[in-house]
């Protein structure tokens, strides 16, 4: 799904293989969601390596403990089924961690051999009647379908589906509350969203919430399960909320937690883009105004005003600059909206994800951009590099996850790190992408990056710019 590349170049071969992937696999996203439930332990039903590799990948980004249990398949359990190791694994997680909930995700192995996890968990639960028994939720995440983002969104939906209680609807407390499903954002973004809700005096159920579990304070004692996370009572009460908000323009094609709550419990669902930049944040704040019945607090009006003032101060440094935007689809859409409103042309918007809605979503948020924007979904980094070369895209910088570092080096352009994963810098979990303040930080960083290029490449070495 690309617009025509410009320039008379060699035809791009249609590669069969994936070369330098721009995605991880589905169970990783699911494990991250489970880490965002209070008192929960993520559990992968599969080989030992899956849990270990995903732990390492997440630890390298969050720099926090990330325990993921596993049933650990061997040859005989692969042939005869993993019932015993699943139940033994759940027993051992229970006795070691005393969790309130175990969140089980499948892997390609268990999906391929056709494990009936739902049935197995049902049996397990029956047998454990009376004993210490955590809640069990599970999500099907075959790694051969979709990406870590699909695993993330599917896990959010599965947890909400399995924990939602119709009886909660009569509760008066819950009825004033709003469900907020932000998608895969940073720990800092989650803290920001909770703060906004508090400023609007609007009770929310934010799910998942790994703002503390994956960015916690230094400890004198090791916490088996880190503090924080969306509470189970809150998850039970999602059907009683007066509305759900979910972020992500590209998940329109998916059945999501919010769409489930709307269909089953008639909770109105509002789907908006990730609030990055002025316009997409305005949509979010407008939604908050409507749901809370309050005006946007002065604090955010001031932030918005300062952001626009900064756009004005910095506009000349950015006008006509060309950016490659690479990452998870909804982040790419949010960033494209933000870049476009500052005068930067998002010449290539690319993602490893393939929702089918990327091109359309980008078009929605870049209507005022006159230059062509190439949109590529389901691509890897070597394909992106070829796209840049054959399309003669001549980028000024890349904005995207750490995995774009190799491409940035190859092209000799600066690389502004955002999203997930950030493996070659510290503080990925503390990057604020959302809201006026998030855009302010990204904007300053972006302008300063361009100024640095100008300063470094000048023989004069201007000291005022």
């Amino acid at each position, binding site marked *: 799904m690309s617009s025509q590349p410009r320039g008379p170049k060699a035809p791009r071969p249609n590669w069969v293989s994936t070369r330098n992937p721009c995605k991880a696999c589905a169970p990783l996203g699911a494990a991250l969601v489970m880490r965002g439930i209070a008192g929960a332990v993520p559990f992968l039903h599969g080989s030992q390596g899956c849990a270990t590799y995903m732990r390492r990948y997440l630890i390298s980004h969050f720099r926090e403990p990330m*325990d993921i249990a596993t049933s650990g398949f061997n040859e005989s359990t692969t042939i005869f089924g993993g019932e015993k190791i699943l139940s033994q694994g759940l027993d051992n997680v229970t006795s070691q961690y005393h969790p309130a909930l175990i969140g089980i995700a499948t892997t*390609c192995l268990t999906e*391929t051999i056709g494990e009936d996890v739902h049935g197995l968990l049902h049996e397990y639960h029956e047998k454990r009647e009376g004993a210490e028994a955590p809640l069990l939720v599970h999500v099907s995440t075959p790694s051969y379908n979709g990406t870590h983002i699909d695993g993330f969104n599917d896990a959010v939906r599965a947890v909400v589906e399995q924990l939602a209680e119709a009886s909660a609807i009569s509760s008066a407390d819950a009825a004033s509350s709003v469900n907020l499903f932000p998608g895969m954002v940073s720990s800092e973004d989650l803290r920001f969203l909770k703060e906004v809700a508090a400023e609007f005096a609007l009770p929310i159920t934010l799910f998942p919430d790994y703002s503390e579990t994956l960015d916690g304070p230094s400890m*004198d004692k*090791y916490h088996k399960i880190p503090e924080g996370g969306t509470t189970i009572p809150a998850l039970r009460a999602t059907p009683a909320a007066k509305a759900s908000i979910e972020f992500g323009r590209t998940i329109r094609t998916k059945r999501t937690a919010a769409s489930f709550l709307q269909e089953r419990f008639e909770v109105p669902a509002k789907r908006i883009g990730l609030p990055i930049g002025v316009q997409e944040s305005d949509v979010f704040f407008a939604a908050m105004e409507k749901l809370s019945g309050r005006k946007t607090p002065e604090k955010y009006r001031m932030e918005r005003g300062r952001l626009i003032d900064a756009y004005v101060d910095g506009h000349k440094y950015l006008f006509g600059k060309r950016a490659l935007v690479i990452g998870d689809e909804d982040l790419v859409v949010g960033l494209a909206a933000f870049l476009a409103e500052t005068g930067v042309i998002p010449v290539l918007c690319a993602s490893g994800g393939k929702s089918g809605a990327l091109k359309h979503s980008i078009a929605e948020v870049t209507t005022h951009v006159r230059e062509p924007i190439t949109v590529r979904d389901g691509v890897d980094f070597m394909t992106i590099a070829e796209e840049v070369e054959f399309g003669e895209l001549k980028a000024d910088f890349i904005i995207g996850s750490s995995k774009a570092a*190799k491409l940035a080096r190859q092209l000799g352009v600066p690389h502004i790190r955002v999203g997930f994963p950030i493996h070659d810098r510290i503080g990925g979990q503390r990057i604020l992408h959302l809201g006026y303040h998030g855009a302010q930080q990204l904007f300053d960083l972006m302008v300063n990056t361009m100024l640095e290029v100008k300063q470094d490449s000048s023989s004069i070495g201007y000291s005022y710019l």
Partner: protein
Amino acid sequence: MADILRERERQVYRKGQQQPFQLDCEKQSVAGSVSQRACVFCGSRVVLYPIVDALHIVHGPVGCASYTWDIRGALSSGPELHRLSFSTDLKEMDVIQGGEKKLFAALCELIDAHKPKAAFVYATCIVGVIGDDVEAICKRASLEKGIPVLAVHSEGFKGTKKDGYRAACDALLQIVGTGPVDDVSPLSINILGDFNLAGETWMIRDYYKRMGVQVVSCITGDGRIDDIRRAHGAALNVVQCSGSMTYLAKSMKEKYGIPFIRVSYFGVDDMSKSLYDVAKHFKDKEMLKRTQLMVREELQRIMPVIADYRRALEGKRAAIYVGGAFKAFSLVSALRLLGMKTVMVGSQTGNKDDYEQLRELCDEGTIIADDSNPLELSSFLEEKDVDVFIGGVKERPIAYKLGIGFCDHNHERKEALAGFEGMVNFAREVHGSVMSPVWRLTPRKRGNGLEVVK
């Protein structure tokens, strides 16, 4: 004291408190124990990864390729093909219809594009289930493209990391013995089980060069297919990382009659002993003299620096948790050289002999653990009031969360820790973590109060 799962009680030992010595090991990880181990695929991938002029393609869904893209600090003096991630990225329809066609097409296009000297095809979990004949596809691609294309049978569930090492060695054995050896000196070796992390193989190679030993191949640090083809011409296999490479060494002994010795390049004592062992093997007086001279030179250079660090580190407590136990021996002695005490030591894959040797090496009260996990490790760190934890990326947050220093001694490290120079780097890194002023502010040292630190 740690909460240890009943099934794991015999995998933790405290020296002096339990008689007689017993430690269960080489067992499958207990389900739900949150083992720090990986899988068969990991074992193969990690061993073959540093072969820089080969194509490495992961056959399976994308995850296994994503998580191992450019993951090791294994440097190359030439091609950088090993730092790219290739996979067949199997989708649902491939799983249903089989992935053979896709694998063949992927191999052909990648070999055409990158002109590798060989290709390794890693079979992952579901390949073993859907029954792709990877071997047949490799043969076909090899015939068509004229390079060795080797199936690595590394389905994640088919054993442990050690089985992955073996699968990697089986692939290597198909390459060894296919190159010319007429110019190989009788004073020659293969370096087995060094992976050139942060350039370590280059340092080791330089020592051997100064001794007058020809290095035929490094398996696999900065590895080249053409060198590995000639590996059977070497007079001796010098094996570090014995866990992964002893099988290759034994097979080469059987097939080509090449003897092997086990060495370690970590720490001053083990480094020196390794070089002397090689020199002694060749019974060459001149070589032994050169070795003595070199070791003396190196020691004269580094010992004053080490002594400085030792003054600061004397009496500090260390914990070690590494993949292979053999490395742990060297670490215990290296820490001792820095005046530090090892109060806890464990490994993912040690065997009975390894642990027996560790027990002999360690002081009374030291905890020895096999296939441990975050809850156990954190409780050991707390109980022993550890100053520095030595492990890999998965162990790092356990130490940091508790306000404890850390040194990465795993395959992602960017500091060369082998050799004489490596000992200085190790001392510097341990010192830089243990002596940092940040610990003074952590709750572990001063509680959660807000009073001003003096």
